């Protein structure tokens, strides 16, 4: 994160103080003096004041209170006053019909649909007809249709590394449920879990589109998490970038990771699952680099390193903290 700027802190204090109530004359003079002291003060104040004003939009999130009648409710026009509802229906039907033609025209194009999938613990690299290379991580399912006019991929489940050949005339579009990722030529990874889509951009630009909102453009070292109708964008530190691509070498990298989260990671790669049976063990923080498919080695390590009790079953390892005192 960024260093805390004393000027910014001071500007925020002034705005908050003013937000608390009107400033008295002396305070008002003090503020004017501070603002006039340096353009750096003034711009910091303007910027934060603008942000705080924009936050008024949050008012839209206020839930309607059904228990309290709201006066302004009466002024809302009744939906029955809208003219000729059947006309909208007809227009919609026409629009739908046109769309259907376009879509089917596309999907019956010259491209053949290819399907790729990997087993639990497997990792495979495939080449597409356009020269792009895809690496599929554990338990991944993907379909691809590459034609002379379009490049489409559907990520149905799992995680994939994309190294996309540049071709501005044929955008490369990945569809994951309702979310869509569009690139021209770049490197990035996608991980889909049901409705969540994690995007990690390694090079170039990636456009992430969630339904009903303008697209978000992510650049190098940025990650986006798309869920339903929203996108959260973060910048990765170099260390986080190592973590998000470590699976390409079959490794899991943990840094202050809760044991429960680490177990969830191992379970993506192994049939024999790690089950942490109590909260104390779940919240133990661990770090290090591990071979994703060698869960046995990891189990031995937490057994000896943390004195955890491990019971080996046919299809799982049960991990508990009971014997902690004995270690």
């Amino acid at each position, binding site marked *: 994160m*960024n260093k805390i700027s004393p000027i910014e802190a001071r500007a925020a*204090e002034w705005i908050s*103080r003013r937000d608390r109530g009107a400033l008295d004359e002396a305070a008002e003079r003090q503020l004017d003096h501070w603002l006039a002291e340096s353009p750096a003060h003034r*711009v910091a104040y303007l910027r934060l004041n*603008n*942000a705080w004003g924009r936050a008024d939009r949050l008012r839209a*999130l206020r839930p309607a209170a059904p228990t309290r009648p709201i006066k302004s409710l009466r002024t809302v026009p009744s939906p029955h006053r809208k003219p000729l509802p059947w006309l909208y229906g007809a227009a919609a039907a026409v629009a739908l019909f046109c769309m259907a033609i376009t879509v089917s025209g596309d999907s019956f194009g010259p491209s053949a649909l290819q399907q790729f999938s990997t087993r639990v613990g497997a990792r495979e690299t495939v080449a597409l007809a356009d020269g792009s290379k895809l690496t599929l991580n554990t338990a991944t399912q993907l379909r691809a249709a590459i034609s002379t006019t379009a490049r489409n991929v559907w990520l149905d489940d799992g995680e994939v590394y994309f190294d996309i050949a540049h071709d501005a005339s044929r955008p490369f579009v990945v569809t994951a449920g309702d979310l869509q990722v569009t690139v021209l030529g770049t490197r990035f990874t996608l991980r889909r879990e049901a409705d969540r889509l994690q995007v990690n951009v390694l090079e170039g630009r990636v456009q992430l589109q969630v339904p009903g909102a303008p697209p978000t453009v992510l650049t190098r070292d940025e990650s986006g998490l798309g869920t339903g109708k929203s996108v959260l964008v973060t910048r990765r530190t170099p260390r986080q970038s190592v973590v998000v691509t470590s699976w390409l070498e079959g490794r899991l990298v943990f840094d202050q990771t809760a044991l429960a989260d680490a177990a969830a990671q191992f379970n993506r790669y192994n049939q024999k699952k790690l089950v942490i049976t109590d909260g104390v063990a779940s919240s133990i923080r661990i770090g290090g680099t591990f071979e994703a498919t060698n869960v046995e080695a990891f189990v031995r390590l937490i057994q000896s390193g943390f004195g955890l009790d491990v019971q080996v079953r046919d299809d799982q390892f049960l991990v508990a903290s009971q014997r902690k005192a004995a270690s």
Partner: protein
Amino acid sequence: MTHAEADRWFVEEVLPLEAMLERFLRRNWRDDDDISEMRQEVYARVYVGAGNMRPISAHAFVLSTAKNLLIDRSRRARIVSIETYADMDALTLTAEPVPTERHVMARSELRHLQAALELLPPRCREVVELRKIEGLSQREVAARLGITQDTVERQVANGIRALAAAFANTGSASIKGPLGFVGDKGAAAL
């Protein structure tokens, strides 16, 4: 320009470019820790510069100011390699199209605000939500949460900075629709 005019120009023309400016600085500067301080410096220089004469394009003015700052800093930091200078010359000032910055709709702004709220520490978030969503005054927030007004004031100050930072990070920095003449619309900036 008068102060009021300069303020309004800054809020309406320069602040919406913040996401673009930060990306530009990040791409061309190795230490992310310096970015917010450099952004402030660019703003101050831009503000002073515009006081003398209002630039025709805020976008170009901000970028060239940022570029000059990068060059100044590289010299001072003595980290200049031949590549750095070559890169500086190659920086195309129009690389970032303006429309992406301004085509931010009310709905997506709300999304960004929500995302920003979720990143706040719990107490700070609670205070900001009561203040901005419920529309309570600081005094009412204090009464509702059983904390002092001074604490509320402090949490609001933290919230203000976090929200401003979130606007830059999420790539939304627009305030209002298409930008026309400075004098023809919008409330006074202060």
